[in-house]
């Protein structure tokens, strides 16, 4: 037996060192204290609205968000009229009309977000062969989630000496392989925030990631609120069941 235990300890030590080697290869992400973290997390509406502005003015030139509808924006604190006005800025194809023809009309709140490219081929043709991914679920679809997207947006810079970046690629500290097809999307003061917030790069990145996190998990606030109620109820209820169990079993013990 003792020899078996010794083998096990040796195995676990070798596992630990292997994990340590692997960890050195990846870079620690920039961690942010997000408003939607924790048991009581909610989306900071101001940040999410600013983030939507960043998406609208910058990201949406290349990235679709096909799972979102303009009507969803009311959840960020935009009024019904504001949402109508936002949607009306976009054209969508509708039809066929009574003459059997397709026609363009301004988007309505019930329409999904307009896409920058008609299809994947068009998107690749416009982006040096790379396909800008749909951002609807981006914070759920990447390891590291919101922190990962935030890190990518802040991770651009000159390649360290000795690293050559391929033609048409860009150096990013946090991207796997450090070469990313997307040029640095956000610069300081790239947007002028409607609420007067200073548009530093970390601020823009923080706000757009708050918006993208809401887009990926619009149910988050309801989920955490109902979860708290459900768990508090269950704790009380289970406590009562334990008391009943003690009482029923009292005679057996």
């Amino acid at each position: 037996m003792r020899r078996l235990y010794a083998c096990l300890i040796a195995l676990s030590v070798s596992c630990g060192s292997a994990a340590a080697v692997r960890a050195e290869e990846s870079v620690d992400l920039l961690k942010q204290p997000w408003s939607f973290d924790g048991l009581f997390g909610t989306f900071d509406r101001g940040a999410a609205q600013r983030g939507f502005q960043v998406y609208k003015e910058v990201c949406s030139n290349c990235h679709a968000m096909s799972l979102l509808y303009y009507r969803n924006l009311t959840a960020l604190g935009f009024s019904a009229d504001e949402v109508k006005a936002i949607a009306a800025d976009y054209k969508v194809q509708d039809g066929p009309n009574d003459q059997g023809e397709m026609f363009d009309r301004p988007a309505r709140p019930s329409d999904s977000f307009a896409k920058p490219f008609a299809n994947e081929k068009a998107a690749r043709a416009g982006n040096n062969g790379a396909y800008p991914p749909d951002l609807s679920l981006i914070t759920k679809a990447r390891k590291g989630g919101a922190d990962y997207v935030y890190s990518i947006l802040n991770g651009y810079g000159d390649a360290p000496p000795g690293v050559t970046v391929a033609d048409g690629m860009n150096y990013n500290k946090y991207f796997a392989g450090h070469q990313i097809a997307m040029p640095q999307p956000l610069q300081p003061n790239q947007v002028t925030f409607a609420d007067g917030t200073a548009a530093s790069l970390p601020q823009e990145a923080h706000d757009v990631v708050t918006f993208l996190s809401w887009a990926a998990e619009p149910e988050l606030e309801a989920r955490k609120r109902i979860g708290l109620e459900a768990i508090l109820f269950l704790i009380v209820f289970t406590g009562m069941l334990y008391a009943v169990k003690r009482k029923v079993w009292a005679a057996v013990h």
Partner: protein
Amino acid sequence: MQTARRHNALIRWIDSRLPFVSFMEHELHEYPTPKNLNYWWNFGSLAGIMLVVMIVTGILLSMHYVAHVDLAFNSVEHIMRDVNGGWMLRYLHMNGASMFFIVVYIHLFRGLYYGSYKNPRELLWILGVVILLLMMATAFMGYVLPWGQMSFWGATVITNLFSAIPLIGNDIVTWLWGGFAVDQPTLNRFYSLHYLFPFLIVGVVLLHLVALHTHGSNNPLGIDRKGPQDSIPFHPYYTVKDLFGLGVFLIVYAALVFYAPNFFGEPDNYIPANPLQTPPHIVPEWYFLPFYAILRSTPDILFIPAKLAGVILMFGSILILMVLPWLDTSKVRSATFRPIYKQLFWLFVVDVAALEWCGSQPPEGSALLIGRVATAYYFIHFLIIVPLLGKLERPLPLPTSIGTPVLQGGGAAGGSSARMEKP
């Protein structure tokens, strides 16, 4: 019949024609149960409840899901975003699968520790293994339905296993796919079977219960009940104890669903399936990782190529459980009275945990080496240790009855588990 006499005339009238009330009273109220069952015996009823939760949430989800390669991913997101309470249904179902496997694995290891598979409960145990196999098939096909990257590539890898079968392997894979790749026919049939299999499980669970009620539950001492003094009626004693256990279980389940719904998930499955782009690491769900580790760490064995050998050992690792009642030569059921088996049981638990870890790692370097050692030990445990130990080990003296275990010599060793009942 006698018990039904207490009820009113209508119930008596029905009961004499369809003895439902008598049946329930006999199987639930009067059903004699050992008085010393500890909390590890809660997991059978929890598994039954999880089966019901999965069927109910699954039926509701199926009212909104679309089994089409172009629509499946978005229909799941439609459930998450637009269906009232849809996110809760979907997270209950998705995490319910994980909770179901946690419960069933604990139930299985409890059987291994207390020797619940031994005479006269061999068929009860075999039916349990059949349920496990059906659950695995159901869970695998369910994971394909959202049609994300892991769904698609997981389905491709696992169905490709059948190509390891000599001569007819490739034809079988084409037959399973309904085409020459994982595509629309595959998704459609997986959806159909994912809906069917839970009801097959219900059928086998009923047989499992019939077999259980024939000889009654095993117990932590592993000795037979000697008389009425060793038994208590199932209701109210174990109904209330199971309900309390259910409450604790639901707190854990709710914490997962509401606060970490993607804890067991892979981020890649929130990327729509793309047959042209293979993810860097294809990992199955956590409950398959030990078996995946066995599959991937198996080398060429004699003239059998590694792939076929891996598939044989992977399926063998589950099927071997079916013959365990005959591999185990010990007449003593409970590990409480088997000092060496008790230690080797925990070593086996560590072995399965090591396989779980190896399954999550790329099969190279130390992970591959540990995977090979752990795979070998898995089979050594069942094929060599368990049969030999029954002959070589000297068990502690068994108590004469469930009512008086602590007065006996074996009481000290068995005390902890037998007394767990007392708060």
